[in-house]
């Protein structure tokens, strides 16, 4: 664990240097990458560690975005709005988890997917509060310059990503993480061995929601205009899964590597093949699932064959 922690510190320190380049484009990309990293790492709690195929990331993201946005609309300062969004996402994940986590396999996947749709429709209809289909404008942050604003959001996402990583590292090396592994391998056997499966699963689900919720709120403040189909987009859920698959579920850094790789590919395709970019994304997913289901890291394992210690 210590080694992973030091590597992470180094990694995040390097990334923190990005704004020195002064390029707005790179900072925007970096902020997005960090956000993707949060989504991927969060999904890992419930999908990777506990083994429950959750598609709820979009629900938490949208919920967080709208909570933060509405809070700011009513005058709450940004930081508090973000914290509030996180807390609401946490509570929502707890309730949702209690309801849904007794479903397994496909049923759980569909239910979690459908939640985002239902939330989107609800938000769409609450026009008084959320602006409904016409979207919601947030108060533009009062900062000295566009550049400073860009840096601010970059560092905000960096901090969030670092916190998420720390949470992931601590969980993986704790009793909770171990219990989740047991649940993922054989849930009924884990139950018989004394693991409180409900408590652990719901905890993992809550962890998978809280950071995503804050990310949503930060995103909303960053782009200062959101609409329901924008933030409750099921693609967020799919991308989170794809990123973890891409990076490989085995290591701590898998989700981050996957997020970086995914974003690079996405940006390349977006810049050069705009019209077919969803198609290319689809193709990427297909190739990934068929040929590299254990992710990029498995490639390195195949190349540098390691011996059993």
């Amino acid at each position: 664990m210590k080694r992973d922690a030091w590597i992470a510190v180094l990694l995040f320190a390097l990334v923190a240097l990005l704004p020195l380049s002064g390029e707005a484009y790179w900072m925007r990309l970096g902020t997005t990458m960090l956000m993707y990293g949060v989504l991927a790492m969060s999904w890992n709690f419930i999908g990777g560690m506990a083994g429950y195929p959750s598609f709820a990331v979009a629900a938490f993201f949208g919920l967080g975005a709208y909570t933060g946005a509405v809070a700011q609309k009513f005058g709450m300062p940004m930081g508090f709005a973000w914290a509030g969004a996180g807390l609401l996402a946490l509570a929502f994940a707890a309730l949702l988890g209690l309801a849904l986590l007794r479903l397994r396999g496909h049923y759980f996947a569909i239910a979690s997917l459908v939640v985002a749709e239902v939330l989107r429709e609800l938000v769409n209809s609450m026009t008084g509060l959320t602006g409904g289909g016409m979207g919601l404008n947030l108060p533009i942050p009062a900062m000295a310059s566009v550049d400073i604003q860009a840096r601010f959001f970059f560092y905000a996402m960096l901090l969030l990503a670092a916190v998420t990583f720390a949470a992931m590292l601590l969980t993986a090396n704790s009793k909770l993480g171990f219990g989740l592994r047991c649940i993922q391998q054989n849930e009924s056997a884990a139950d018989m061995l004394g693991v409180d499966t409900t408590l652990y699963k719901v905890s993992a689900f809550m962890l998978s929601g809280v950071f995503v919720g804050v990310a949503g709120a930060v995103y909303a403040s960053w782009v200062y205009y959101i609409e329901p189909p924008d933030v409750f987009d099921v693609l967020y859920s799919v991308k989170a899964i794809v990123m973890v698959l891409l990076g490989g579920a085995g290591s701590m850094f898998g989700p981050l590597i996957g997020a970086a790789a995914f974003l690079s590919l996405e940006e390349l395709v977006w810049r050069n093949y705009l019209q077919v970019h969803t198609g290319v994304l689809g193709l990427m997913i297909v190739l990934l699932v068929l040929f590299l289901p254990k992710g990029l890291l498995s490639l390195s394992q195949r190349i540098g064959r390691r011996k059993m210690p």
Partner: protein
Amino acid sequence: MPLLYLQILANGLVLGGLYACIASGFSLVWGVQNVINILHGSFIVLGAYLAYFAYLQAGIHPFLSILIAIPVFYAIGYGLQRMMINRIIAAPVLLTLTLTFGLDLMLQNGMILAFTADFKKLVLDPPLGTIALGEMVLPVDRLAAMVLALALTAMLYLILSRSRIGRAIVAVRMDREAAALMGVNVPRIYAITFGLGVMMAGASGPLLAMIFPISPLGGPAYLGKAFVICVLGGLGSVPGAMVGGLVLGVVESFGALWFGPEHAITLSFTLLILMLLLRPHGLLGRKGYE
């Protein structure tokens, strides 16, 4: 019963018949091989486009397009399963879902490029008009679509219950290992089942084209309905899809009346979640089938 309710009920049943048809193929694939085909909705849309262009450019009536769609989509489904999905048939739920999701993205993008993103509407000339049943009024196109949908569904049911292949499919659904031990070629059955599923999707396309506008991004909406119907009616059985379809149709009709049509989706999805929590194997399904 007041006339309004009767009318709404009738509308719901007509719609329900259509829904049953679009869900039956999806339910079959899920029930037999435990694969959720995210492409199902988009195949329906593709079938709709087929009918649209066939009518526009060659004057082929949508009812005839169904006959064209049947072999074409069966072949597509069979090929898709054989080439790709079979490779990961034993993989966890997550991978199969993600794969079909990726394929769906490709199909949707392809359709946007080929057909543009604006809505297309297949308007029959001359229009079929309406028919009066007592004091109720029903549009003939919907009624005809429902009848044909029921015919298609019945055809699937007959295939499953009467033909040798059909019985093999049911055997695999009940117990894959036992079926294999009895000499059933399971991978081939999977390919056939998937072919049938996609065939039902593509063949429903022309029916839906006659009633609803067509858009390349319309797949997920149909997929959502298929989900709800499967959960309502139970997996892998045509009678289940029938029950689920009719229930959904009626619920949507009355829901539109009481809550407004814009909440139709929320209503059906809430129903889905309630069913999953209370009775996940559906109204007709058997317990222990995940």
